[in-house]
């Protein structure tokens, strides 16, 4: 574990009994967990290389309880880490030894389904897939579909601004959330956005989504739902070289086509997935593309033909087109099993998440192969080709001393490469702990200070999820310092905080 969390505050650790009692006074019964063996399941999220049991877990059931917990923690200067289902791949829910872990799992009710305005109001602990399940019989669905959608919660999706394979066409979480109720660290319950298409005033909703639990705790979410497309069909296209696949993706978009999903796998990923699920992927190709088209049947058949023509023009050696939904699902099965398939190639893997301008893909893959040789660690690549979001899986063995650190260094080099070619550190998994110390690769100290000032506006004492996202937490007073001219503050009539 090469990334260090803030050192626990001894004075807070010494008050553990008092803190647990205060939590019990707010949330009765089994909603407060403080026994060592019962804290264990909460010690990590899906970034399992990092583990830390929390001081105490609290599982509130009502917004009032959340407000009371935050108000108490704020008054007593105790840190709080919010958690949904714990599926974060970036360590967003990694607990703190001197912090309260605020689990939102009991907020598991769907509050309202409104077909007239095509929206659903849910509590944050409802899973992503449960929203679609609740409306699918009426022909609707919730579009963002992170691969952990069976387990991950909508609250976690809001915190991380989660994506999925369909976000090229349908957007990330932020494009599908209409409003939230959230509680500030001061215990104030606020609503931003609502059932209308646009919030009034500053778009605070836009900055809360994707804030990784650092600005507030979301207690209710309103999402928009979409009518299920009439048909969906997929093509499975094999290429003898990555460049052809990359050109095919660019040409599809240049032809005016925005597929519902456009995924690429490199040869090692294809082999790993095929060995795992046996869905008939071609094994003699360097790159495999899955292109899904949805919409009216007439549109799908028209676009399938266009994509097929484009694929052939770019040297595709194998093309299969799904004839029914079972076959379409089979095309996806290998891609969706890529992570567990990687788990069979090595005891452990790290999943990276950079985005690059697509035109740089062949170059980036070549340099990644060189890095793989340099580090002596295998890497397999699956990625959302349509939007340039890479998911290299670095294979390693945590039981070999030093190999995790080695894999992390390899991953950091990949992400530096993404930024160098004009891309970003994370396309959908979030910064969390994992990419925290790389933030200066992408942002200058001034850029980061501006982001942190927004944090200070919501949480001036830096009690919410500290140790995530920002490599260094500056005290808010230090960041807020202003140039004072001749000892006089300009505009003395304005309130300041």
């Amino acid at each position, binding site marked *: 574990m090469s990334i260090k969390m803030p050192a626990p505050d001894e004075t807070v650790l010494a008050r553990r009994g008092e803190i647990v009692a205060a939590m019990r006074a707010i949330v009765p019964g089994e909603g407060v967990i403080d026994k060592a063996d019962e804290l264990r399941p909460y010690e990590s999220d899906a970034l399992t290389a990092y583990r830390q049991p929390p001081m105490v877990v609290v599982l509130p059931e009502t917004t009032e309880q959340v407000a009371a917990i935050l108000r108490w923690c704020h008054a007593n200067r105790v840190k709080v880490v919010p958690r949904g289902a714990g599926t974060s791949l970036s360590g967003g829910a990694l607990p703190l030894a001197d912090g309260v872990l605020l689990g939102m799992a009991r907020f598991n009710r769907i509050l309202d389904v409104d077909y007239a305005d095509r929206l659903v109001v849910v509590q944050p602990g409802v899973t992503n897939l449960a929203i679609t399940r609740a409306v699918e019989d009426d022909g609707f669905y919730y579009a963002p579909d992170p691969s952990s959608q069976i387990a991950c919660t909508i609250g976690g999706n809001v915190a*991380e601004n989660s994506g999925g394979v369909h976000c090229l066409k349908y*957007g990330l979480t932020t494009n599908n959330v209409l409003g939230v109720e959230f509680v500030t660290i001061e215990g104030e319950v606020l609503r931003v956005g609502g059932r209308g298409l646009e919030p009034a005033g500053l778009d605070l909703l836009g900055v809360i989504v994707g804030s990784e639990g650092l600005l507030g705790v979301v207690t209710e979410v309103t999402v928009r739902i979409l009518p299920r497309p009439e048909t969906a069909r997929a093509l499975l296209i094999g290429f003898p070289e990555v460049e052809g696949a990359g050109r095919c993706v660019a040409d599809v978009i240049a032809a*005016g086509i925005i597929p519902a999903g456009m995924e690429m796998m490199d040869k090692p990923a294809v082999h790993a997935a095929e060995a795992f699920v046996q869905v008939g992927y071609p094994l003699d190709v360097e790159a495999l593309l899955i292109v899904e088209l949805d919409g*009216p*049947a007439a549109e799908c058949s028209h676009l399938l033909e266009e994509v097929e023509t484009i694929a052939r023009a770019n040297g595709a050696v194998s093309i299969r087109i799904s004839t029914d939904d079972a076959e379409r699902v089979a095309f996806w099965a290998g891609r969706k099993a890529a992570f567990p398939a990687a788990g069979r190639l090595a005891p452990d893997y790290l999943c990276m998440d950079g985005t690059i301008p697509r*035109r740089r893909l062949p170059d980036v893959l070549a340099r990644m192969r060189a890095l793989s040789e340099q580090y002596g660690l295998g890497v397999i690549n699956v990625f959302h080709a349509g*939007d340039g979001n890479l998911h290299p899986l670095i294979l390693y063995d945590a039981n070999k001393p030093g190999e995790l650190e080695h894999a992390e260094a390899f991953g950091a080099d990949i992400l530096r490469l993404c930024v160098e070619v004009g891309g970003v550190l994370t*396309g959908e998994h979030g910064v969390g702990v994992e990419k925290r110390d790389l933030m200066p690769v992408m942002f200058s100290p001034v850029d980061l200070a501006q*982001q942190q000032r927004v944090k200070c506006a919501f949480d001036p004492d830096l009690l919410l999820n500290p140790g995530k996202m920002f490599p260094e937490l500056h005290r808010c007073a230090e960041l807020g310092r202003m140039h004072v001219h001749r000892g006089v503050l*300009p505009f003395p009539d304005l309130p300041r905080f």
Partner: protein
Amino acid sequence: MVGAIRPDSADALAAIIADAASDGTRLRLRGGGSKDAIGAPTPDARIVDMRGFSGVVDYDPPELVLTVKAGTPLAEVQALVADQGQMLAFDPFDHGAMLGCADGEATIGGIVAAGVAGPTRVSRGAARDHLLGFVGVSGRGERFVAGAKVVKNVTGYDLPKLITGSWGRLAAITEVTLKVLPAPRLQRTLGVAGLDPAAAISAMARAMGSAAEVSAAAHLQDWNGAPLTAIRLDGFPSSVEARAAIITALIDGVAPVADEEAARLWPAITTAAPLPTDVPLWRIVAPAARMPDVIAAVGGRWLLDWAGGLLWLASTDDAQAIRAAAMQAGGHAMLVRADAETRAAVPALHPQPKALATLEERVRRAFDPAGVFETGRF
């Protein structure tokens, strides 16, 4: 107003802002001035003309990303992408004619700062959904970068969302990166005449909830002498035809609107052109299903866009009463057009509840601690 100043580099802009923070001048950021008539008059503010920041920085059509300086005219940006068979991913429009000045002056930075979104808001989203990154100078006089130049990014806080619709109160935007999309090959509009507001909203909801992938839906109180509900389909020709058949089966009495008429209809809806111009113009956003209640509660002429989620209202009713009706329906009301005296007395933006207003104030101070951009316009 105090004379305008026109910087042409981020350094010059930063110096202007830093000086203003020191000497107590307040700065009103301005692009082409197409929206000058929105908000309270600000006689004491110095105008910073942002048109010195002009030109394309990077545009690679297959990447679906365009980076352009903020002072570039909207019309130029739209012509640039149209030339490549593309469009901005949202549906910006020029407020010029609507606010009594010439069209063609609006800049892309002004569009972003005002969060402008036309009829396809209901299907493709707004400026907030497609601003990927920006460069700006904060009220501290510091140049900073936020977001990025790729279509998918969650690195750090989504400050592009926050800057969109912030009306020049957080930072001066010098460069924007926007998502672009392929332009549809074909647009077809279907119309049904004679529906009352509730029936029109219900018909639009059925259309939006169908597999017809409706791009835009609007309802006019009076078009050629009768109410008109209009539904637009965009896309590949074969697809548009199939979807038109879905709508025809779904809504009684629906018929195609001729292309020439549709070409007049949508710009008229976008800029609320059919409404009288000599009374205050309001922009009310609320859940569509509740909009009939709003219409019943207010007087005046109106039209509905965004499948009923946006009400353009020309009304002499009391501002408080209009805002109360909007709030009652779970929405909010912005005063877009009125005489200077009214604008000096009635805030343009809908006032927020106190706790939220306090938080907004803190966020504004996070960008602009000295209040350089607090001109009193909003």
